[in-house]
């Protein structure tokens, strides 16, 4: 899936991702390919982006939003 992480400082991550593990208001979730369209509220924590080839990248999140649309595009708005 295509992942884009937006912040007021610019786009912090853009590219293909296998998975995204993130803290939401209702608990920790992992978003995989072709997840159902969802919009949810993020909580403080570390977002772990699973890249192709088993590597991971971490992004600290204070608060924000996550959106998955019907075309496999995942967007994260963070502060």
């Amino acid at each position, binding site marked *: 899936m295509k992942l884009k992480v937006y912040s007021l400082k*610019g786009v912090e991550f853009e590219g293909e991702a296998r998975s995204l593990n993130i803290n939401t208001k209702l608990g920790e979730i992992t978003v995989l390919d072709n997840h159902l*369209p*969802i*919009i949810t*509220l993020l909580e403080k924590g570390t977002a772990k982006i699973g890249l192709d080839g088993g590597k991971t990248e971490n992004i600290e999140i204070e608060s924000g939003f996550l*959106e998955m*649309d019907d075309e496999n595009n995942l967007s994260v*708005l963070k502060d």
Partner: protein
Amino acid sequence: MESLQSLNRRRKAVGNIGAITKAMEVVAAIKMRKSEEAALDSRPYAFKALDLLEKLSRVSKLESVLMRPRKVKKTMVVVITSDRGLIGSFNTQVLRVAENFLASDKKRSDQEHSYSFIAVGKKADAYLAKKSLPIIEKFYGFGDYIEVEEIAPLYEYLMQGFIETKWDRIVTISMHFRSALKQETLVREILPLDTEKIRQDVKEIIPEHGLFSGEKNGNRAGAEDIEYIFEPSPAELLANLIPHLLKMELYHLILEANASEHAARYVAMKSASDNAEELSEKLIIQYNKVRQAAITGEMVEMAATRSALK
């Protein structure tokens, strides 16, 4: 006629001032570019946030304390100027608009209604104090800020006061950056929040001319029929999104004001160094003329003495 020494001294002094204004000109140009870039970097975020707002408002009615208009008893006026001078008429323009706003605001005739002020920048503070208007809070040092964390104290203060109904309306008066040569004063009501206005404001982030003017809005339209899962609920999501939009808007106002300040300083310093150069040329010519006159005088004296000795 002025003596050679004093002319020389003046010439050097003008040259030194020219060097200083030239340096300030270059620094201002760089800072302007930085603020402009920071404003543009946040644009993808702004568009995405608006996109979310639209999706959420389709399924839920907008209902937030920040959006509900209420009876306005107190208006908070945020006057945004610079900390330092040497920027031509920049501060004067902002302060004049502030004065006009106060004079023409329709709430003025209302007996129960009152104003209070937040000064951003030392010049605003000095002005408000001189007019003995009630300053609730002062914020300094915003002129070089380009990080979003740095405006947090102002943002939180404004929000807190609005939620606790210390004030019912927030108006900002600042400079809007249209291009490096053109800035306009801007009076904007940021609370209660109007989503239509925010949409308009985001579009204005693109400067009209110059390096960054060509960039376009990159959002795809027509995604109306996606069935989203909303967690926890559309209403709660909206309530959380709105403060983000507000923060973004305030951040932009500050960045715009900064870009304008540096642009104004750049222009002022440019004309100052041009003037210094011109003056320095005139002084050199004058210096040479005086020097030549002195030499001619000495020659005449020598010739006269010689002929007298014969």
